[in-house]
């Protein structure tokens, strides 16, 4: 009788420890998503800022300036639900403006243009990186959250179900092709 009771207690304790460990794992994943999301936001904002700067600097022709300014402005002002679309449109605008290597060269030649293109190149490269890391964390958290033990025992608490950030982040060809940029 006592032995059975002890065994039941041991089993309950083991289950409790396992659930606590799983909750800890989930907590860590949520923290990772938060950090990844903050990093993605920072990169997106940086990209929009550089694009806006270039659009208002007068180094581009007026038509390109307007297109780029419009897209960068929309990306910065977008509401959360519109964000993915606005950022994708900025990617498209950047591809349209910096599609040709000559355009990039022209920007580099003006004073300060070298630094601006450098920043833009870095930004368009880091956005896909940050997005991939974010979505990777989201995927890992979702896989764990869909598990029975997490659903039955509500281990995720009130944390919202993580969503991937989907957008078109293809960089402009002339900026992505780093070989062409080698001095």
């Amino acid at each position, binding site marked *: 009788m006592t032995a059975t009771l002890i065994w039941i207690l041991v089993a309950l304790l083991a289950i409790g420890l396992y659930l606590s460990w799983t909750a800890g794992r989930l907590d860590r994943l949520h923290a*990772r998503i938060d950090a990844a999301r903050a990093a993605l936001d920072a990169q997106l904002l940086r990209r929009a800022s550089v694009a806006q700067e270039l659009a208002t600097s007068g180094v581009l022709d007026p038509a390109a300036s307007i297109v780029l300014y419009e897209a960068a402005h929309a990306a910065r002002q977008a509401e959360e639900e519109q964000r993915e679309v606005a950022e994708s449109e900025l990617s498209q605008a950047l591809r349209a403006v910096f599609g040709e290597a000559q355009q990039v060269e022209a920007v580099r030649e003006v004073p300060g243009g070298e630094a601006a293109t450098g920043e833009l190149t870095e930004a368009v490269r*880091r956005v896909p990186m940050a997005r991939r*890391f974010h979505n990777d964390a989201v995927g890992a958290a979702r896989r764990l959250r869909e598990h029975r033990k997490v659903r039955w025992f509500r281990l995720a608490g009130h944390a919202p179900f993580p969503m991937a950030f989907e957008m078109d982040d293809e960089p402009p060809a002339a900026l992505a092709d780093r070989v062409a940029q080698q001095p």
Partner: protein
Amino acid sequence: MRIGIVCPYSWDVPGGVQFHIRDLAEYFIRLGHEVSVLAPADDDTPLPPYVVSAGRAVPVPYNGSVARLNFGFLSAARVRRWLHDGEFDVVHIHEPTSPSLGLLTCWAASGPIVATFHTSNPRSRAMIAAYSILQAALEKISARIAVSEYARRTLVEHLGGDAVVIPNGVDVDFFARAKPKAEWQGDTIGFIGRIDEPRKGLPVLMKALPRILAERPQARLLVAGRGDEEEAVESLPAELRSRVQFLGMVSDEDKARFLRSVDLYVAPNTGGESFGIILVEAMSAGAPVLASDLDAFAQVLDQGAAGELFANEDSDALAEAALRLLADPERRAELRERGSAHVRRFDWSTVGADILSVYETVTAGAAAVAAAEDERGPGLRARLGLARD
């Protein structure tokens, strides 16, 4: 930035991953970062100042060959101490799925962790059995890097999640500046790799050799690499054996000169390659490359634009392509030129900057790396309401 790099394989034994880590660490040190590499090493091997030994690796059979790995209580304690003392901003683990230091670090660390997946092994039985343990450790990795699109695909299939592709780096100028050696020039075919490892493909090349020599008797095959030379030429008719010259293990300098000198570099590997650094080195030195059409090789060679491909394990196709190239100096010059331009993207200046971008992306807005226990203590106390502050 304070960077901690974990090497899973013994520092005493030369290998692709070890060289990659050495070059990466030295690149970051040149840029003024603080770097510490944790690697298995015998206590009496001389180590560069930035390498910390994690103790001797134990040879155990793993994944079809004998691997020298570190595990157990002592190694785990050393990993923990290294993490604690290092106070790193980011920890970069190489090959986190091998049951060695990488996995131990994953277990012990918390904070920004970057991991590079070098091999693209098909999922092993052990990995399926240990899946849930592995998954819990791999979940801590904030950023995954795959060395090729092919490696990324296998990673996604087997472990889920995603990774960015950053190729392995090469010091392109080191190879481009090497001086050719006259005795290695003139209708020479080069091969570098372990002689006795069939997957490096020397047997395929040996089978193709009689046909090549029948048409071009003046051609020579130069082989650099360890292994039993007698056994390697066994399949060759006795009168042709003199056309094969074995150079044994070569130094880095000689390797560069070798690649600068040969008229054609052949990589007949039959499988198990996830990147193909030797092709990048050959192209850096301006050697025209002929390689088997493995996924990884095709990608490094830009789908055949920067070097020629032949059907894997088909020695007739190899002989045909080699003969065509040896007879066509113009085509070889074209390949040299294209290869040299293509290879710039693998230079450390590009690759290192990309890896640094990854570090900066994951450290933005995150705390430094800690040994997990440092955190667990106060965390638990805080949860129980016992924290002092």
